[in-house]
């Protein structure tokens, strides 16, 4: 058959691909349950980070658990923003607005400072956070719908400007509607999930008062966010592989052409916006619960840029890449904070950390010149019968590698055992 000829030629080309592409090819050809089997130990290792307290990588200036908890929230934000920016190609410069709406919904409904407080009434503080998170997600989704319906008719720069305005409007409303939102003083004593109450932790493991490492509140919030990240990744991943995902990529590539191919572009742009918004709202709800305090200045426009930086740095369109981007954004400044020496070399870590925006700015510029697709560029899987194609190309690749075996290529032989399983599926 002629298709075999063409796949073998491309496989021959791919012999010259880098390590990342070879790894990806191997991964794509694995059956799904094997992917989980390989992935789980990695996930468990990451989950154990706050407990293991590995030398060098554990932060010194701030608690490592809290840093990782913050990373978890930023990772969620990056995944949500990636749906909008990376998948659908809509530049959203006001994403922090959704983060704020999520956090403020939890704050307004559970803080004693708020006129909308439910906890003094019928909602027990033990369950308040849990009960309010779905409401926070729903409210942010609705705000995404309200913002998106009129503005998604705009394109490119115009949409970016409108969203930039939206982010600021949310913050200014929170700051100035003092009677409704607590104003600049913020909202305190926000509810958090009460769980794992014991003698030494009278308020439960999630309480901000649980500060004794390694099992402090940061670690528990990190684990909670990891669970949520995995759930969100599964949902978003399935969407990406479906017709919805193909529509998003088509819109990103060429909106007019997408419309001509029969993609209801407005509908799917709105979908991306709403899904992105609700993930942002979920992250905001986590933030409000962890810090138990929200104040408008936290939701400054610079945060939108930071979230966008995580997405661009990690690789637009690659949901695992943007998590790595979020890690870089959160971890690197904290890595330097409070550090006086690194591998015996004396450094002023606080000073370095305070220049984080400068360094991220330079990093973005360098990246745009040398690797505009980001550190971990996306590879779309858009074909209806895509899996068969990937498995076939992997087989052809191995065959070509075997042919070229006279010149030794040792690394390619190892994964072939898994591949036979993948091929028979």
């Amino acid at each position: 058959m002629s298709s075999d000829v063409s796949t073998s030629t491309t496989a021959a080309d791919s012999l010259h691909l880098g390590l990342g592409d070879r790894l990806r090819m191997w991964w794509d050809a694995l059956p799904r349950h094997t992917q989980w089997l390989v992935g789980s130990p990695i996930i468990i290792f990451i989950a154990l980070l706050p407990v293991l307290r590995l030398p060098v990588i554990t932060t010194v200036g701030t608690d490592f658990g809290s840093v990782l908890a913050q990373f978890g929230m930023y990772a969620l934000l990056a995944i949500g923003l990636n749906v909008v920016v990376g998948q659908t190609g809509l530049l959203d410069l006001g994403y922090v607005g959704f983060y704020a709406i999520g956090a403020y919904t939890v704050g307004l409904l559970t803080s004693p400072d708020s006129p909308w407080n439910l906890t003094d009434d019928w909602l027990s503080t033990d369950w308040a956070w849990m009960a309010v998170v779905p409401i926070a997600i729903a409210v942010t989704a609705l705000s995404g719908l309200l913002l998106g319906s009129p503005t998604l008719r705009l394109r490119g720069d115009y949409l970016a400007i409108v969203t930039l305005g939206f982010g600021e409007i949310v913050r200014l409303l929170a700051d100035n509607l003092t009677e409704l939102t607590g104003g600049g003083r913020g909202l305190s004593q926000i509810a958090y999930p009460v769980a794992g109450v014991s003698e030494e932790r009278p308020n439960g493991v999630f309480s901000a008062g649980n500060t004794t490492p390694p099992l402090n509140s940061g670690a528990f919030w990190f684990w909670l966010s990891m669970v949520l990240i995995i759930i969100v990744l599964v949902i978003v991943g399935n969407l990406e592989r479906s017709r919805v995902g193909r529509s998003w990529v088509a819109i990103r590539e060429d909106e007019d052409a997408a419309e001509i191919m029969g993609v209801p572009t407005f509908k799917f742009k709105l979908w991306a916006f709403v899904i992105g918004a609700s993930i942002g709202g979920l992250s905001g709800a986590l933030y409000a619960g962890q810090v138990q305090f929200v104040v408008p200045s936290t939701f400054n426009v610079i945060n939108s840029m930071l979230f966008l930086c995580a997405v661009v740095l990690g690789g637009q369109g690659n949901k695992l890449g943007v998590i790595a981007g979020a890690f870089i954004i959160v971890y690197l400044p904290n890595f330097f904070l409070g550090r006086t020496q690194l591998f015996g070399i004396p450094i002023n870590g606080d000073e370095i950390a305070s220049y984080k925006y400068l360094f991220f700015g330079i990093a973005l510029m360098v990246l745009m010149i040398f690797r505009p697709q980001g550190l971990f560029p996306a590879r779309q899987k858009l074909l209806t019968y895509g899996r068969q194609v990937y498995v076939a190309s992997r087989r052809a690749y191995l065959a070509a590698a075997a042919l070229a075996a006279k010149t030794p290529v040792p690394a390619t032989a190892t994964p072939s055992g898994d591949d036979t399983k993948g091929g028979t599926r």
Partner: protein
Amino acid sequence: MPLLELKDLTVAYGRIEAVRGISLTVEEGELVTLIGANGAGKTTTMRAVSGIRPLSTGSIWFDGQDITKMKAHMRVLAGIVQAPEGRGVFPGMTVMENLEMGAYARTFDTKAEHDSTLARVFELFPRLEERRTQVGGTLSGGEQQMLAIGRALMARPRLLLLDEPSMGLAPLVIQQIFRIITEINATGTTILLVEQNAQQALSRSDRAYILESGEVITSGGGKELLADPAVKQAYLGVA
């Protein structure tokens, strides 16, 4: 009953009317061409038919139904598929992914149907099969045009709209594209073609309309128009 009928179509960009009261018909199985100079309103007419440009007045009828108010993506579902001007392939998708996007709205019921439609596209454009894993944006102009047409064919159109398929291509490639257009038409697909290349288009069309400043000035059989002295002078550069 014609497959496509435009009745008194007017399309405006702000105050400027690009199309002023065009009426035309396309019968089932025909290859009909719109010819005109730059700015005559050819592309605007196409955009109105595929639904990405709203009308000021007039109506569009497809297969006996008024589709004037129908959204663009619904028209694809009805069977009106366009290969847009300037090719409009998805630059970051591979040739295969582009082709599959063609079938986005009109999905295949079985894999066999998918394979046979794909095989037909590859039969018409063997070059696309050679380039199936190459990214759309890196194809040559001619290959991109082939891909745009091939992608439209994946939707198994009842009416194929081709907007200036010869634009910016080498004479040999133009010849090839036109041969394939004739072949597609011969196998039963109705085609509405917009062209500036009057010689090629007229000699292969059943009928043609000549547009000037947004109005139809002449219409008739392709070969008749080709012999018309006025047409010759204006569009074929023959004195």
